[in-house]
């Protein structure tokens, strides 16, 4: 029981990070029907931005942890969004109206570009991030297996909930979010009503990148390491989460992220740590075969 609870805590933490990244995949797919394979690398770039930023912040003598975190979040959000915006502008927008596979290929290219750029700029070795949120709570101390909730895990969960609330408000209540959803449902009609479609697509990439930036910082706080290749596996898993939740569905992305996080953690905890990735990707295969529209997705039948 205690062991189960411990895995649950670990799984939810990991799932939160996957969920935040999965939103980026699902939003972009919803609006332009393309899988942005560079999204995982945007996440990786955000961890590097946070890493460089934390060194700078510490070097100018700021030591208060809340201030550091806030600054990190701010810097990482801004710069990562800029990356997201630039990638769309450079690699995808010129291909709009081209054949369907063109932006997909361009995305894979962009992924390679970002990885190699970071590898060259920062080196290929693993980089460690200082422990900003130390300490933990422990429960069931009398038993044989105390359950530990690290404060870093708690912050990942709290930040994820807060960010998701802000994000939900943005998408459902503001005119920007309304324009975004309109474009997702009928791009041409949205344009006929006066929505600047290019700007809305840019905005979608910026929001996706911003969420990836939050995920990147959370990842660093929890795991404490990153490298130029960190975006690949995490990105593919977040993509799996988006597919599991039903690609195009925002609540689905979060649900899928949590599910993948939990499956992976429980598999690692009860079956085999070495094969946890197999568990996660088996889900992708199973979903694609038996439930192609995902948990909360809509079937691909459009009424005309």
């Amino acid at each position, binding site marked *: 029981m205690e062991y189960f609870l411990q895995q649950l805590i670990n799984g939810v933490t990991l799932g939160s990070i996957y969920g935040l990244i999965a939103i980026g995949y699902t939003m972009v797919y919803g609006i332009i029907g393309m899988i942005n394979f560079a999204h995982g690398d945007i996440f990786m770039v955000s961890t590097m931005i946070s890493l460089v930023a934390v060194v700078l912040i510490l070097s100018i003598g700021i030591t208060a942890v809340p201030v550091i975190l806030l600054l990190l979040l701010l810097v990482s959000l801004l710069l990562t969004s800029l990356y997201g915006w630039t990638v769309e502008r450079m690699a995808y927008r010129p291909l709009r109206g081209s054949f369907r596979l063109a932006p997909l290929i361009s995305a894979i290219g962009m992924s390679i570009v970002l990885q190699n750029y970071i590898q060259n700029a920062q080196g290929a070795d693993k980089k460690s991030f200082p422990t900003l949120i130390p300490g933990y709570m422990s429960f069931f101390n009398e038993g044989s297996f105390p359950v530990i909730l690290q404060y870093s895990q708690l912050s990942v969960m709290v930040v994820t909930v807060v960010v998701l609330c802000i994000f939900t408000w943005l998408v459902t209540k503001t*005119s920007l979010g*309304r*324009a975004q*959803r*309109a474009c997702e*449902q*009928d791009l*041409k*009609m*949205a*344009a*006929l*009503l*006066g*929505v*600047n*479609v290019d700007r809305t697509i840019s905005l979608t990439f910026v929001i996706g990148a911003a969420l990836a930036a939050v995920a990147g910082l959370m990842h660093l706080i929890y795991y404490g390491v990153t490298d130029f290749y960190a975006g690949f596996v995490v990105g593919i898993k977040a993509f799996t989460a988006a597919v599991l939740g039903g690609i195009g569905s925002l609540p689905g992305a979060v649900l899928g992220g949590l599910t993948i996080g939990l499956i992976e953690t429980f598999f690692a905890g009860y079956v085999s740590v070495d094969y946890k990735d197999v568990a996660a990707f088996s889900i992708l295969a199973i979903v694609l075969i038996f439930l192609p529209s995902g948990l909360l997705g809509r079937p691909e039948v459009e*009424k*005309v």
Partner: protein
Amino acid sequence: MSEPLLSVQGVKTYYGNIIALRGVDVTVNSGEIVTLIGANGAGKSTLMMTIFGSPQAREGRVIYEGKDITRRRPDEIARMSMALCPEGRRIFPRMTVFENLQMGAIVTDGTGFDRDLERVFTLFPRLKERLQQRGGTLSGGEQQMLAIGRALMSRPRVLLLDEPSLGLAPLIVKQIFNALRELNRSEGLTVFLVEQNAYHALRLAHRGYVMVNGVITLTGTGKELLKRDEVRAAYLEGGKGGVEAAAGH
């Protein structure tokens, strides 16, 4: 006579290499209801979409309020107080009726939103009852009302309507055409209407155009066109003639 509000001059539109409009001239004066009738595939919807810049005309010009809008993007044209209700209504299915109407108002600065909303509710009281319902769950007639309401929320000077009667019960068609007549009469709204339902359209319109295979073949007042033999044969009693022609070959 003053300059027309909207004029289409020698417009040619292609889909790839296939020509859809072969040089079309149409004018719409301020305060008029003008209709364009023609068979399926004649290019009526293409003309409507070409006016709105999607697709753009390859040759010719579209002049609106004295400005050349041939090369403008649809969203720019929407900001010039022109509104389009496209074929198939294209309601946002997963947005509520209220959100759909809000989408119509995005080109306005937001002031007067409540007044515009009231105006739409006066025309189509049904929408008020359905306000929080998702667009996709409305009936065809309600969706058409919503499409027109959404277009009116942008406070257009000219409203382009593509086949508003398509697939609707006669009673609903009557209601929608009455609403258009009322808007034109009381507010001077200019309407450019594409219709297959030629009888109702020509009775409503001040002037009409007949399009065949991407060119305008006839023009005149609504009453004149209603009396023309070729119009009657092709579009009014065409049901019978069409069936016979199809059976003959």
